[in-house]
C-alpha cells in the first residue's frame, strides 16, 4: 500500500464499513436457532409494506395528485397505497410490541430500538401529510382539525397543514426520505448486532453448566457472524 492510498478517504470509509458490516453479516445465509416464532415476520412485513407504499405512491406521484379522483385505475392505486399504509402501521406496531417484550435493546442494541421507535414517530406525520394532501373532504376536515394541535406548539408557523403544496412536498419527498433513511439505519444495525438472543433462564444456565463436559457448543457456520 502506498502512503497516498492509506490516506484515501474512500479507502478509510470502505475499510470501516467492511469492518462494521462484513458481507456475511450484511447478507447472512444462516440465523440462530432461537429465531423461530411468527413474531419475527412482522419486521420484514413492515419493510415489505413500505416497499408497496413507495411503489404505489410513485405511480400516484407520476400521474399527479388529482389523477386518482377521476380515473378508476388511479383510484385503485390510491386504494393499494392506503391499505399498504394500514398494513405498514399494523405490522410495525406488532413488531414494536414484540421487540418490547423481547427487551430487544439488550446486548448493545439500544440504537436498534431508538431507530425503530423514531421510524414509527416519523411515519405518523408522513401518513398525516398524505391524508391532508388527498384534495377531498377528508383532507379538508383533517387539515382544519390538525392545525390547532400543531399551531398550539408553534409547529404551525413553519408546517402549515392547510397549505396543499407544502404538505404534498413533505409527503412525496421529504418525509419518505426520512423514513427510508431511518429504516435503512435500523436494518443495518440489526445486521451488525444480530437478532437479540433469548433472555436466558437461570435453570437452563445451571443445567448447561452441568452438561458442559458432554456437549460442546455448536460453532456458528463460517459465513455467519455471531451477534455482537
Amino acid at each position, binding site marked *: 500500500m502506498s502512503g497516498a492510498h492509506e490516506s484515501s478517504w474512500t479507502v478509510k470509509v470502505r475499510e470501516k464499513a467492511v469492518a462494521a458490516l462484513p458481507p456475511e453479516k450484511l447478507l447472512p445465509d444462516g440465523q440462530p436457532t432461537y429465531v423461530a416464532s411468527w413474531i419475527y415476520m412482522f419486521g420484514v412485513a413492515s419493510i415489505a409494506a413500505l416497499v408497496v407504499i413507495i411503489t404505489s405512491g410513485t405511480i400516484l406521484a407520476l400521474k399527479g395528485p388529482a389523477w*386518482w379522483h377521476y380515473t378508476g385505475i388511479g383510484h385503485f392505486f390510491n386504494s393499494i397505497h392506503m391499505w399498504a399504509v394500514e398494513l405498514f402501521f399494523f405490522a410495525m406496531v406488532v413488531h414494536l410490541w414484540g421487540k418490547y417484550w423481547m427487551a430487544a435493546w439488550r446486548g448493545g442494541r439500544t440504537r436498534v430500538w431508538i431507530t425503530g421507535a423514531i421510524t414509527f414517530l416519523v411515519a405518523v406525520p408522513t401518513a398525516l401529510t398524505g391524508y391532508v394532501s388527498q384534495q377531498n373532504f377528508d383532507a379538508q376536515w383533517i387539515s382544519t382539525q390538525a392545525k390547532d394541535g400543531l399551531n398550539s406548539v408553534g409547529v404551525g408557523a413553519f408546517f402549515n397543514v392547510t*397549505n396543499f403544496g407544502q404538505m404534498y412536498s413533505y409527503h412525496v419527498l421529504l418525509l419518505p426520505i426520512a423514513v427510508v433513511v431511518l429504516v435503512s439505519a435500523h436494518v443495518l444495525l440489526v445486521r451488525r448486532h444480530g437478532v437479540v438472543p433469548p433472555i436466558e433462564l437461570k435453570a437452563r444456565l445451571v443445567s448447561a453448566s452441568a452438561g458442559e463436559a458432554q456437549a460442546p457448543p*455448536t460453532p456458528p457456520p463460517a459465513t455467519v457472524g455471531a451477534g455482537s
Partner: protein
Amino acid sequence: MSLLHPKDDTKPWMGAYQPYDLVKEACIAVGVIALLAILLAVLFSSPDEKPSTVAQWARQLPANFVETAATELDGTSGTATYGPPYNHNGEGQHAAFIYLQKWLGVSHPINTADDYVIGPLRTVPNDPTLQAALAEYQAAPQKTQKAWGEAYATPLEEDAQAEEEGKPLPKTVSIDPHTGMVSVQATGTGPVPVMMTSLLSLARSGGLDGSLLTSKQFFQTDYTNPLLFMADGGLLDQRAEEQHLGGDEWGMMNETGSYPGQAWLWLYALWYQIEPFKNSENADILVMLVMGVLSLAFISIPFIPGVRDLPRKIPIYKLIWREHYAAPASPPPAPPRPQAVPDPRS
C-alpha cells in the same frame, strides 16, 4: 452500571445456526404484502368524498354563510380571534409559562375583514351600490364598523341558536326560497347588509372560491384562506357530524366511511375524550406536550428503570422463545485456549 449503561448480561449467541435465505424471505414478504394490499383494495376500495366549496356552503346554508361572513367582518370569528400564526388578535394556547404559539409568531397573516369580505367584494364589477357601501364602510371609524357588523350578526346568531335548540325561529331572518338570498331585519347595520348580500351572491356564483385563492401569483397551492373561512362556518362541521368525525368522536383519526383511518393516532385522540383535557381552553397544547413527553419516553425505553425491566417480569418472552427453551441448553462457551507458540522453524 449507570442510567445510560444499565446492567446487561446478554451474551453473544454461541449456539447453533440454521439455514436462512434473507433475500428470498424479503421477496416473498413483498409479494405477500402486495397481494394483501391488492386484495383489500379490490374488496374495500378507499374513500373519496368530494370536497366542499364555498359556493356549496353559500347555497346550502346561506344564513350560516352570512352570519360567518359578518363575524369575519367585525373581527369576532374563530380565525379573526385565533392569534398566531394567523394574526395578533389573541395569544393562542399556553401551558403554564410556555407560550410556544405566541413565541413562534405570525407566519401566515390573515386579516379576515380584508381577505374574506372587503377584498373579494372589490373584485365585483359594475355595481355602484356595492362600491358606495364599501366606501361608506371603509370611511367609518373602526368602532362604528364593529357596531354595524354586530348589529347585523346578532339576529343571525339568535336564529342559529334557536334552530340548534329546536325553538321557534325568530322572524328577523328570512331566506328567499327562490333566490336563496338572506334578509336580516335589524337597525344600525349601516352598509353591512348590502355588502353581505353581494358577498352571498358572489359566493353562490362560485366567484368567492376563486377570490379567496387569489394572491400575488397565478399558480396556487395554498388553501389556508378558504379552508379557515369554511372552518369558521357550519358546512364542514355538518358533514363531519354526519360522518361521525367530530372531536368528541375521536376526531381526525377517523375518515369518511367505514375505513380504519389513522388508527395509530388513538392515543393522541384519547386525551381529548377525558378530563382535564376535554374541556380545557388549552387542550391542544396540553395534549401535544403529553404526547411529546410520551414519545420521548418511547424512544428512551431502554434507559427507563421499571419500563425496561417489565419484559423480564411479565414473561411473554417465554412464549416467543418457547422452542428455544424446550431444546436442551447449550453449555456456556469454553474460555479461550492459550495460543500455541509458533514454531520458529516453520
